[in-house]
């Protein structure tokens, strides 16, 4: 049965490869409500299109539905209704396993708290991104080192994460997200734990990556971060408005 799921994903991936010209993200009428008295509508009829190479900032106050939107975009959560196409693949009807595989293959996550494993070296943390993919073990370290070079941390590969500065840690986490060339870099408050100098370094890195053609979606409440993005959308009480 699992093989059948994989075959389905494979077909979907191939189909999407043909549609590389199409949008990376296409949300149409997405709603997400949580059961409560009365039910909470975290996302209210959200429609959003993100094209290849876009650098999009999603801004809004806390409790506005930012996190719910991020979870839906990251395939961590299912919308209650509506359609979400990632790289042309309709994800709302996919089974759990297929969604997990799609998530691992297509989306690179960057978290506010970095989520680096403290007892593993920087390069091992980056290599972690590949172990759940079908890619072989051969050349993994080299690919991880290349990703570290790309974020300017080639000289920190053997370090333990707690020896790095906050900015360096976030760059290591970005290197991990970049491994395996994802279609989408999904960042959740990536500078929330950083001082202004480190924030500047990370934002500079985002600019570089955007110039290399990567699609980046950043969720933030910091003006400084959102101003660097090419596009801004504001979410208030679950309603999305383009700025």
């Amino acid at each position, binding site marked *: 049965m699992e093989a059948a799921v994989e075959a389905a994903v494979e077909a979907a991936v191939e189909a999407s490869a043909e549609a590389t010209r199409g949008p990376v993200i296409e949300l149409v009428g997405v709603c997400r409500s949580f059961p409560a008295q009365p039910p909470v509508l975290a996302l209210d009829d959200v429609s959003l299109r993100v094209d290849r190479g876009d650098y999009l900032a999603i801004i809004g106050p806390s409790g506005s539905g930012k996190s719910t939107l991020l979870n839906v975009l*990251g395939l*961590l959560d299912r919308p209650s209704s509506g359609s979400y196409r990632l790289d042309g693949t309709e994800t709302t009807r996919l089974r759990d396993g297929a969604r997990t*595989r799609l998530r*691992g293959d297509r989306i690179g*996550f960057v978290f506010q708290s970095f*989520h680096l494993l403290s007892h*593993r070296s920087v390069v091992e943390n980056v290599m972690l991104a590949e172990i759940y993919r079908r890619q072989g*073990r051969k050349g993994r370290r080299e690919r991880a080192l290349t990703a570290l070079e790309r974020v300017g941390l080639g000289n920190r590969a053997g370090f333990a994460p707690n020896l790095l500065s906050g900015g360096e840690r976030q760059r290591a986490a970005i290197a991990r997200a970049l491994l395996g060339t994802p279609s989408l870099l999904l960042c959740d408050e990536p500078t929330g734990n950083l001082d202004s100098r480190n924030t500047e370094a990370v934002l500079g890195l985002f600019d570089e990556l955007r110039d290399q053609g990567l699609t980046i979606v950043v969720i933030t409440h910091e003006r400084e971060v959102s101003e660097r993005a090419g596009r801004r959308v504001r979410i208030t009480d679950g309603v999305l408005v383009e700025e």
Partner: protein
Amino acid sequence: MHVRDLYDEAVAGMLARPVRSALTTLGTVLGITTLVVTLGVAATAGNQIVGRFDELVATAVTVEVPRNAHKPLVTWDAVDRLTRLRGVESAAAVSESEEGTNLSVRSNDLVDPTRVTARSLTVLAATTGLPQAVRGRMVQGRFYDAGHVQRADRVAVIGDETARMLGVTRLDRAPAIFIGKHAYTVIGILGDLGREKNLSSAVVVPPTVGSRFGLRDVTRVLVNTSLGAAGLIAGQAPAALSPGNGDMLQVISPPSPTRARDKAQDDVNALFLILGLVSLVVGAVGIANVTLVTVMERVPEIGLRRSLGAARRHIAAQFLLESTLIGLVGGVIGASLGVVVVVAIAATKQWTPLLDAWLAVAAPVAGAVVGLLAGLYPALRAARMEPVDALR
């Protein structure tokens, strides 16, 4: 996910908190050690007990000859027929009678009112094979031979206890003892008896002499067989000793050695096996507890792995493998410790350590199974976690 990756992740997870992992293995180490020591010591001791039975009892056969008014059931020369049987190592015929017990024996004829010189001792007659048949040795001098018997020489062999009581210390001057009114030359002292230990306080005379003390007929035949032949000889001895009247003889043969071993093992095993199993259960609870705590601590890591594309089964497999490895390590350490303890115990008691080879394999496997079972619930908890909740 590649199996090597799964293994690497589990090992890394285990080594991330080495002290905790080491402490977690303790319960399993104790349990497996107890089990191995119990089984090992029981096997070793069981083997030892059987060894002792072999030496003393398992080859000793005694034939009791009832009195017969008209004609003796067993003649003195019947013992020669018995020793010709295959499986008989040594045999001797002995005659005891009521007349022969409590005879006054003294080592000289002086009457000394301040000392008790006369001892009340048992006198019995025996064939020449007696020292071998009772597994003793001549402490001094020699046993009488066929010539003494034939000539009806007035010689006697006394037990070492008798010699002490009568004050006979050396034989080079051919000391005499008086049984009743007659003197007999002491030619040997018999000691270190393996069976029939009461002979050490007795006086033994040749059959041809014994008739004076009412020791005419054979009353008992002592037989030593080679290992494992006791049952066979017990069946054959009556016919060899007394053809035609064999069923009137009473044969006393040793109990089956296998039953002795089973009994010894059962006694030792039961209690300690229960102890070992209890330790194992405690060990399993310990592993389950710590793994559960570890899972709760590593919720963000689980979230990260899910975001990197790990399916639920990947998460479950990792935690399951971690707890299994902890159990396996505990099993290996426990088995090693257990073997060392068994060998040490055997060394101090000068036993031969006896351990089943499969125990060395089964003990670590048992540890791993304990770890696997203990990890089931925590792994399930980890796998059931929603990625959204784990990343919060």
